């Protein structure tokens, strides 16, 4: 078989295995709750019967592996269970009067918002950081390189909320260019949505560009110092031709990795930024649910984040396998 295909199959298999274990960990989290959390959730007005019904609903009367399979199959179909909050102990035996909402109905609109923010950031950040990184690598040790590098190090060291607050002071408070609260709803028109999300997107851009630019610069410098590039230059090839014909084919893999790594970083950075700007996304939902200790919602959000993270890493690896010149021309 072609070496690319075998490597691809191996990598995708590994991805599926890690997905399996991640779902197992997230599922198990509810069982690690200390004490009898069913009684704690239902509160003062619980009766023996409501406790029993709630247990049944959570499936705590069934063995562990059965519960896992049930949870996984319904999760794949988009059903992540019901929230703990709004669960009324008195109505527990009458499901139609239960005020608990389904986790997926909470997640869905927020998922769109978060991906909108992430996509907006990615569209600004990826070209910007690639250009900055590559030019800094080409003009290594120049004044330009030093300035870009020093500001990137500063941006990396600052917590996201610091960057966010500084932006708010200058762009939303002293000069009121943009709103400091990004209260988008599902009915907000596209252009207004973009306008409302500018500050959170800008914050995320600043933080990710710093990371991405430094990594791009390092990998390009690493590549340009390899002997075969020097050889190409020595045989009289022009600088641009060396970069396009010799450097670039080997540069795709690290660049794809860097982009995926930073998109993965983005979905984590989103949590803090969403809280600062009160942006109704998955991150904010997750933090709220952690404070309320609403475990099914936390599980749902963790599942979404972990899934995106694993998928992005998988895509990056697939790209680097497919574009690897050493695998393209097997001996």
């Amino acid at each position, binding site marked *: 078989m072609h070496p690319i295909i075998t490597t691809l199959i191996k990598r995708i298999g590994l991805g599926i295995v890690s997905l399996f274990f991640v779902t197992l960990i*997230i599922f198990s989290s509810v069982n*690690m709750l200390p004490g009898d959390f069913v009684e704690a959730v239902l509160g003062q007005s619980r009766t023996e019967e409501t406790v029993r019904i709630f247990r049944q609903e959570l499936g705590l009367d069934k063995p562990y592996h059965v519960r896992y399979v049930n949870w996984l199959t319904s999760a794949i179909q988009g059903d992540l269970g019901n929230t703990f909050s709004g669960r009324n102990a008195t109505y527990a035996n009458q499901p139609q009067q239960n005020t608990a909402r389904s986790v997926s109905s909470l997640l869905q609109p927020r998922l769109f918002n978060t991906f909108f923010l992430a996509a907006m950031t990615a569209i600004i950040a990826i070209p910007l950081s690639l250009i900055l990184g590559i030019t800094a690598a080409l003009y290594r040790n120049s004044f330009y390189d030093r300035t870009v590098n020093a500001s990137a190090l500063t941006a990396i060291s*600052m917590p996201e909320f*610091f960057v966010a*607050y500084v932006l708010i002071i200058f762009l939303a408070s002293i000069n009121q260019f943009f709103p400091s609260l990004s209260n988008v709803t599902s009915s907000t028109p596209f252009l207004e949505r973009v306008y409302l999300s500018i500050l959170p997107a800008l914050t995320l851009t600043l933080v990710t560009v710093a990371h991405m630019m430094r990594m791009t610069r390092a990998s390009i410098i690493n590549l340009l110092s390899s002997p075969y590039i020097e050889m190409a230059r020595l045989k009289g090839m022009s600088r641009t031709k060396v970069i396009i014909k010799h450097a670039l084919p080997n540069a795709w893999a690290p660049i794809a990795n860097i982009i995926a790594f930073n998109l993965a970083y983005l*979905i984590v950075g989103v949590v803090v930024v969403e809280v600062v700007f009160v942006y109704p996304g998955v991150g904010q939902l997750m933090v709220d649910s952690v404070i309320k200790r609403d475990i099914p919602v936390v599980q749902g959000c963790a599942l979404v984040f972990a899934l995106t993270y694993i998928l992005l890493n998988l895509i990056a690896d697939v790209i680097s396998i497919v574009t690897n010149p050493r695998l393209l021309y097997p001996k």
Partner: protein
Amino acid sequence: MSKASNQYSAKNEVSNTHVRRTIFQRSLISLSKAPFTAWLGMIIVSSYFFVAIFAPYLAPYGEAQIFKVPYAPWDNVHIFGTDRLGRDILSRLIYGARNTMGIALTTTFLAFLIGVGLGLLSAILRGWVDQILARFVDILMAIPSLIFALMLLSIFGSTALNLILIIAVLDSTRVFRLARAVGMNVVVMEYVEAARLRGEKISWIMGREILPNILPPLVAEFGLRFCYVFLMIASLSFLGVGIQPPTADWGSMVRDTGELIQFAAYDVTAAMTPILPAAAIGILTIGVNFVVDWFLYLTSGLKDEHQ
């Protein structure tokens, strides 16, 4: 370090064939060659530690002492004003150095204890121990650590102890990988083989044979991991699930005073109040990064000389 005389004397050179410099002398020499950024970093880090250690003597008021005026403006009584409950911001900043840095340091130490211990163990034992530990770490690293920490905190509750344990375990995965990778290179050396044949215990091989030889990359990693843990705890506290009140901590101070930022157009000093703790976090991280950069340059430079 005394200055040697300028005159060359063959007798002196022959009689003192080889004078070994002490560690103190060697560090003085490398310190004198340190670049500006490294000095800046060292000054920043040591002044933070100074503030953290002598917090009760430096702070004008108590950590949770409440005054009559909430949100007091900056003046002579309260240099940086007071917060929502009327607590002095400057005092809380000073105590915050102690709490935030203390928790971050403890967490990093614990992460290194777990990570280096297990990493070296799997480098020495190889076989199924290594396989199980490495695969387990791979799985833990497949979930972003902030998300994992949030999930675990929602289950076990946000106490300082839980925070330290959870972040230490999550962070030890990265230490494990590094310790295992550099440990593997040393395990194959002859002197480790000799120690094994002598019948030394695993703890001796780990502590006396391997650890001293992989110390430089681990020390550099310690600085970087400290920054990472520090930012993570600050973020969690900012989100309201980290260090809980009334303990003064920079992340939750930003959260508490965040709404003041809206008044920047009317009173710039008020808007600066949440910026102060956030800047305190950022400056320490930059300082540590500068020191680590220099240390990495130094240790890798020394290696080049030997080759």
